[in-house]
């Protein structure tokens, strides 16, 4: 028998050849089986591309499922906590889904591509859960991660870059809208979505045309500061936007072992995504009970005094020595654009109401020696970074 050669290493996205050309740092990590660049040449420069010009991030590893069939809408409505009947064709919904106990499995975006035809995107893989949830529904669920190549094109000049590619319909494309465009003999889907909290788009195309798209995009953006970016730059941008990352700010329920380590949507600030007025959705009974009895945890966005990054710090109710420990920081950063020491964290309810003050115990190292500071922090209820251009339709040209 001739041995069959199987590529067991990390997968490469169709954009890999271009990313590899631009790669200087050679720092890659695993994202859902694909190799993904942490940074290509300079983390800081890449971050500033997002905020000042246009950053391009390869989101092909994002897990994608095509959901179709007569019951597709009913299926999704049972799956996620928000009312999907309100998401018309050509619109995108940020959504969250729970297990039977009302604990968050993951969050993701659902694209209503055409009437009755949906694509669900999430960071983690969920085929088993989605298939189980399909029992009793006339619906087809197809894993299409490898069949769609995708790029996030984010930043203030992104609109102008795409305009240069002669894409129609951009002027009226609102946040969470999507359009289709014919190019390279195939269909390019453009959605006004992203993970940066800034003006930005995501482009979705047949993998065979991925390189054509990349080249056309970089040609169109060469006078608009277009730059490829890695995960680290995006990670900083998402913290500024106040977006949650699974495995950092919450654990997907299916990935926990210990009791009490899961979170409900109400406990991670997603109550606005839970619609108790629609028909049954998974976790509804449990969440109604939690709403009546009160939640255990609350997710907070913190504006922390000083400039020491509060990674993994404990949160206290008071600045005094004997004060109660009420939670911990899950992600933290110095925000270059806001000039703020920001963090996301989890505290015990009822602590952490917007406007409340809490104290964060920050450890930092100076020439091997550790120092500690109790930094006062304010709970804020808005994202740290939410520029008007994010919602402007049409966005301003550059």
């Amino acid at each position, binding site marked *: 028998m001739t041995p069959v050669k199987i590529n067991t290493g990390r997968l490469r996205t169709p954009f890999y050849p271009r990313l590899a050309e631009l790669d200087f740092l050679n720092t890659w990590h695993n994202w859902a089986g694909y190799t993904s660049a942490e940074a290509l040449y300079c983390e800081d420069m890449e971050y500033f591309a997002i905020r000042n010009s246009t950053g391009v991030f390869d989101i092909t590893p994002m897990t994608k499922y095509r959901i179709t069939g007569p019951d597709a809408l009913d299926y999704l*409505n049972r799956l996620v906590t928000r009312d999907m009947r309100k998401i018309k064709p050509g619109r995108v919904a940020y959504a969250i889904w729970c297990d039977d106990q009302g604990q968050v499995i993951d969050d993701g975006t659902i694209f209503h591509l055409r009437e009755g035809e949906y694509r669900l995107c999430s960071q983690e893989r969920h085929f088993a*859960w989605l298939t189980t949830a399909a*029992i*009793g529904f006339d619906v087809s669920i197809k894993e299409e991660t490898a069949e769609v190549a995708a790029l996030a094109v984010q930043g203030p000049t992104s609109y102008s870059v795409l305009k240069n590619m002669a894409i129609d319909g951009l002027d009226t494309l609102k946040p969470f809208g999507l359009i289709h465009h014919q190019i390279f003999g195939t269909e390019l889907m453009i959605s006004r979505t992203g993970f940066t909290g800034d003006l930005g788009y995501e482009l979705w195309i047949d993998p065979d045309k991925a390189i054509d798209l990349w080249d056309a995009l970089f040609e169109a953006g060469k006078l608009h500061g277009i730059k490829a970016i890695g995960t680290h730059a995006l990670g900083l941008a998402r913290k500024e936007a106040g977006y949650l990352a699974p495995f950092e700010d919450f654990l997907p329920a299916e990935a926990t072992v210990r009791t009490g380590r899961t979170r409900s949507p109400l406990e991670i600030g997603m109550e606005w995504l839970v619609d108790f007025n629609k028909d*049954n959705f*998974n*976790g*509804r*009974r449990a969440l109604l009970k939690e709403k009546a009895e009160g939640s255990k945890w609350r997710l907070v966005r913190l504006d922390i005094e000083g400039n020491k990054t509060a990674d993994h710090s404990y949160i206290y109710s008071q600045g005094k020595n004997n004060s109660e420990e009420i939670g911990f920081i899950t992600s933290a950063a110095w925000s270059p654009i806001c000039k703020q020491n920001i963090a996301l964290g989890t505290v015990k309810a009822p602590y952490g109401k917007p406007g409340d003050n809490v104290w964060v115990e920050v450890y930092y190292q100076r020439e091997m020696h550790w120092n500690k500071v109790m930094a006062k922090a304010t709970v804020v209820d808005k994202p740290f970074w939410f520029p008007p251009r994010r919602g402007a339709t049409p966005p301003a040209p550059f």
Partner: protein
Amino acid sequence: MIDKYDAIVIGAGHNGLVCSALLAKAGKKVLVLEANNQVGGAAITREFAEGYSASACAHLLYQLQPQVEKDLNLNLKLASKNMSTIVLSKGIEHVSYCGSKVTGVNDSDQKNFKEFTKRMTKFANLLKPYLNKAPPRLGTKNKKDLFTLAMLGFDLRRMGQVEMREFLRLIGMNIYDELDERFESPLLKGGLSLDSVLGTHLGPRSPNTILTYLYRMAGKHGEISLPEGGMGSVSKALSDCAEAAGVEIKTNSQVKKVLLAKGAATGVELNDGTVYNSEIVVSNADPKKTMLELVGARNVETRFTHRIDNIRMKGNAAKLHIALNKLPTIKGFSDADYGQRILIAPDENYVEKAFNPAKYGKSSPQPVMEITFPSVNDDSLAPSGGHVMSAIVQYAPYKHKSDWNEEARNNFKNAIYSVLKQYMPDIDSCTLSMELLTPVDLENEFHITGGHWHHGELTLDQFMFVRPVAGSAQYQMPIDGLYLCGAGSHPGGGISGASGRNAAQVILKKGNK
């Protein structure tokens, strides 16, 4: 038309009737809706050939719980009781057993049989009280549940170290090994093997077959009787009792769906669009039909749906009815022998081999059978001179490779007749007409998913705390006001009435809070 009831029971199976009668006795206004044109569900007597009638499914009564009879003041007329079981031999040396006595075997087998039945009766008695109440929840702080669990532990321990060990050793075990250790007579081993696997998708070598045997013994210690007028008369007695208590029963009323509002049951809608309102809906239908069809997966949670969908309930028992112009000849049989329970299970390996093809979607080429001639002691079932044979024939898997096409049916009929002929050489000339009901037919006629008599395999993973599924074993479904009362819930199948009675108790207790 809109009518309001305190409780609506879907399905007038025997459990539904028991449940409705008990609810009505407690003062509830109860409506029972039955899809078919007579009450009883699968526990009915029906004419299968002109002038010839038989019980459509189960034909013998051995599990009816004494508590049910007592609560409802039932006074059943029995055509015969305390029946013996005769395992047919091809010669005249049949083996016959009843209670702890067995004849046709050597002294050692007789002695061992006594011990065996004594122990099995003891274990069955241990289980019995727990079959007659809602199973305790596991991992709860509810005092009553914890008490019941503690009692179960205490009852086990109280038997003494030897018996407790024996119980724990046997409860998950297969009957084959136990029989092989104890007995020599192939016929005795064959008969007891068949007792353990009747109505299941199990062979005597399958784990759990001691549990199914104990379950069988837990009604009346294995005492078998034949209701006069067939099983339909039991259902009739139950429905008379329910109607006397004020229950309204509507036949030809097939429920299409359970109506819901904000996670709670509000009533039911029939196929013809008629709506009946009630805040309590009790389903005598099997758990799959109830939750996946009548309620709909979308109205309950994903994991719960998954568990329900995975309940193993593919029937494997077929029912055979033969109209006879006279009783067939069985060598060495006295007239009285024809009135007993007759088994074709020549040895334990034969039973296992009969099961083998069922695993691969084929029916047994050499089936095992539980045969009765109910007309021997009950002349209402056949015209004068004529007789009826009613038999449970295994194995006939629900998921047959051919989906039970005409050829598969004929093959199975031929297999049955070729086996029958070995014991009743003149069966062909006695046969006037015959009817074979495969699990698919049973599903169609009685609306039981998979045509499984017990509304779900009775195995340890679908027993007690986890019947029908983990987290929902106390009759209440995860929809406010929706309950199960059928064999798919604890304790399980057989004409026992325990599920219906337990469900009624849970519903009434809830209402009194």
